[in-house]
């Protein structure tokens, strides 16, 4: 490392654009504030008490001036507001072809699960050149996944899934950190993101040593935890079918209709009494104290993988 670090690495095109925004806005900030510094010094010297100067007709009020120096800077700032808000909105709309990585944060480590079932702790290997979508879940308190080189962070909130996506373009290893205070070892809850070329990533996947894909691990849990006892084909109990559930609409017993996304599936497993599917009894037990967030993510992956029976459309009651 030569010299003093002054600026973080840019690992993606987005990082570059954000830096341009930050620098441009800093220039505006300097333009708006430099006159104050300059004039204060000039006036303090020129109009120093006892010094001869032209103090005729000092002004105490000039409404036009007041309004212009309020409105004009504000208008300039709004330009940057539009730019920054656009980037922010883009960050909330991940592209559909993203590689999905499941992330579980817990005191005080990061667990990453690739779709093929590869697991990592505190290190994340991903390819450059394609969108990566991280689904974030917390086992305990609020954490925050932060990768300075990507200029991105997102709080990981217990009780819900949050997400973060990026498309990196520079090979290398970059720090990742927890940036929401989470207790004793918050300051050491970090790791690295390893951005690799697609071929290197493929090689890494092969030797990462897994037995099953995420969805297959979920299928195994589905059996061992007894889910198939009610939701399986031969079940005696009336329970909603899960084939083709993901992404479709589910009528609830209170008359509302929700879409079965990851959050819905997670909540159905951990807080089944919160939302009851219409026409079904409220008898599903909770798995709150039985399954951790990473297990739930596997089950979600499994249920997502279950093929649809009828074509898309609102689910009909059994």
């Amino acid at each position, binding site marked *: 490392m030569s010299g003093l670090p002054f600026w973080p690495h840019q690992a993606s095109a987005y990082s570059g654009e954000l830096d341009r925004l930050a620098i441009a806005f800093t220039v505006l900030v300097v333009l708006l504030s430099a006159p104050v510094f300059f004039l204060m010094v000039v006036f303090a010297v020129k109009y120093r008490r006892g010094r001869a100067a032209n*103090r005729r007709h000092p002004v105490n009020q000039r409404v036009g001036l007041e309004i212009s120096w309020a409105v004009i800077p504000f208008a300039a700032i709004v330009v940057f507001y539009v730019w920054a808000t656009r980037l922010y909105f883009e960050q909330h709309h991940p592209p559909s072809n993203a590689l999905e990585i499941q992330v579980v944060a817990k005191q005080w480590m990061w667990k990453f699960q690739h779709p093929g079932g590869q697991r990592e702790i505190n290190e994340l290997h991903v390819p450059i050149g394609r969108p990566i979508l991280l689904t974030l879940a917390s086992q305990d308190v609020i954490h925050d996944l932060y990768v300075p080189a990507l200029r991105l962070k997102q709080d990981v909130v217990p009780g819900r899934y949050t997400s973060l996506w990026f498309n990196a373009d520079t090979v290398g290893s970059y720090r990742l950190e927890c940036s929401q205070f989470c207790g004793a070892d918050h300051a050491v809850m970090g790791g690295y993101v390893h951005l690799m070329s697609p071929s290197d990533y493929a090689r890494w996947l092969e030797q990462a040593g897994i037995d099953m894909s995420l969805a297959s691990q979920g299928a195994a849990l589905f059996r061992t935890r007894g889910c198939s006892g009610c939701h399986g084909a031969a079940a005696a109990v009336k329970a909603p079918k899960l084939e083709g559930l993901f992404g479709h609409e589910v009528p609830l017993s209170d008359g509302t209709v929700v879409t079965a996304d990851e959050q819905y599936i997670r909540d159905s497993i951990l807080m089944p009494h919160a939302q009851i599917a219409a026409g079904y009894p409220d008898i599903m037990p909770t798995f709150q104290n039985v399954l951790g967030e990473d297990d739930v993510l596997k089950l979600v992956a499994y249920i997502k993988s279950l093929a649809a029976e009828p074509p898309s459309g609102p689910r009909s009651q059994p």
Partner: protein
Amino acid sequence: MTDVPANKHANPHDIRDRGLSETPEQRASYLRAGHTLRSWFLTTDHKRIALLYLVAVTFFFFVGGIAAALIRIDLLTPQGDLLSNEGYNRAFTLHGVIMVWFFLIPSIPNTFGNFLIPLMIGAKDLAFPRLNLLGWYIYVIGGMFTLFVLVAGGVDTGWTFYTPLSSMFAHGQVVMAATAVFIVGFSSILTGLNFIVTIHKLRCPGMTWGRLPLFVWSHYATSLILVLATPVLSITLALIAAERLFGLGVFDPRLGGDPLLYQHLFWFYSHPAVYIMVLPALGVVSELIAAAARKPVFGYWFVAGSSMAIAAVGFLVWGHHMFVAGESMYAGAVFSFLSLVVAVPSAVKVYNWTATLYKGQIAIDPPFLFAASFIGLFVFGGLTGLVLAMLAIDMHVHDTYFVIAHFHYIMVGGTVSAYFGALHFWWPKMFGRTYPMVWGRIMALLIYLGFNLTFFPQFILGYLGMPRRYHVYPPEWQVWNVLSSTGASILGIAYVLPFVYLIWSLRYGPPSPPNPWGVTGLEWTVPSPPPKENFAETPVVDYPAYNYPLELEEGARG
């Protein structure tokens, strides 16, 4: 400062008597109206209560400062060698809790606001003198709870007490700390209540709203926030305690509750709270600039109105603390826009102060230097707030040292500079003694330089990606941290200096006439220090605030 005449009551036969014997004014002052402990601890005189607060906030400033010293020493090395992980967490939590609630919020309002508002409006005291004293006792009790937390192991949640960490996972004295803050909140509420009623009802004849000093306007706006926002903090802390003690959970996700609900409630108070911390300072600076320039503040109504606008819009921007917390992107967009709006009135003030200096008669005395230091640091801090308000930029620098640098520029570079500026400006009025100006100038300069050295590197560290609340960091960032800690030691020296020369002045400083600076304001029409009842006769005002002669001959001496 005009030449101070030698004390004409000094013993003329003793050349060493440099004014140590008291003037008749000093013998009749509020300081001399009763010597017993009872006359101090059961006083209802707003001026004595202001001094009680002065001592108390100074004490807590140093306790919080010691925590800051521990933090900066620990950060000298990348490993975190001084404190354990848990110890460091307790240090920064305590630093935040003490500095926010026991120093920054009460510092200017409860010392200078208490002392000066009745004098500035021509009243004999605040509207509710006994409530004023009660407020001090409540503050002290809250402070004692906090000291108890300190010795009983501390609290480790950060001053923000985020759930579910605070409600369900943290091991420290969370309930005790929440109780301490809950208690001191009532002191805030009583102060705000007192100021509002005082300013409405106790203005002397002729003192219309348009003739009030801008210091009073700022405190009025601050008081509105104090009474409306603080109760929300109280109920939020009560809910955390209920969750921790009884399992009553609305923030617990395992019960179906929402951790984000806590953040909304907490920031609904805590964002206006930062305006509680800065509005009084803005009022002080208006006074210091007008006094230094011997000229009315440019655009009086714009500056007065900007205080009210900051108070009002300040209630609408709390969500900018939650851009990456999981709130909806549309909420983020709205809060971001409003956060830009709230910067406008602050900008108006700064530009107006600069315009005030134009064609003024500027004295480069300590009050001016502190005000200039304030303006220089506040402008920078405020504009970095705009940087943070930009949504995409915040996604990078939220919860990093960038944020820490931003708020310290405003709180320390701003409020603390203004606090010391007020101290140096009104010291002669409060104690009847003047101090050596050169030391005040040195302190102002040391503060400006030390402060920038401490906190400017933190902007760089933040953008580099150093999260806040970390005492372990990559070795390549050490240089910036060492620079920052060096600056902090300079600041520490600067803050200790006034203890020497100001306390020295109490005994050896030349006595002060009523108006040592030659400035406008009702407080400068009474003796220094003022008598207990402030005014022998109720003043009648028929002139504007900052009633300086406008047209002067070229080169005229002030």
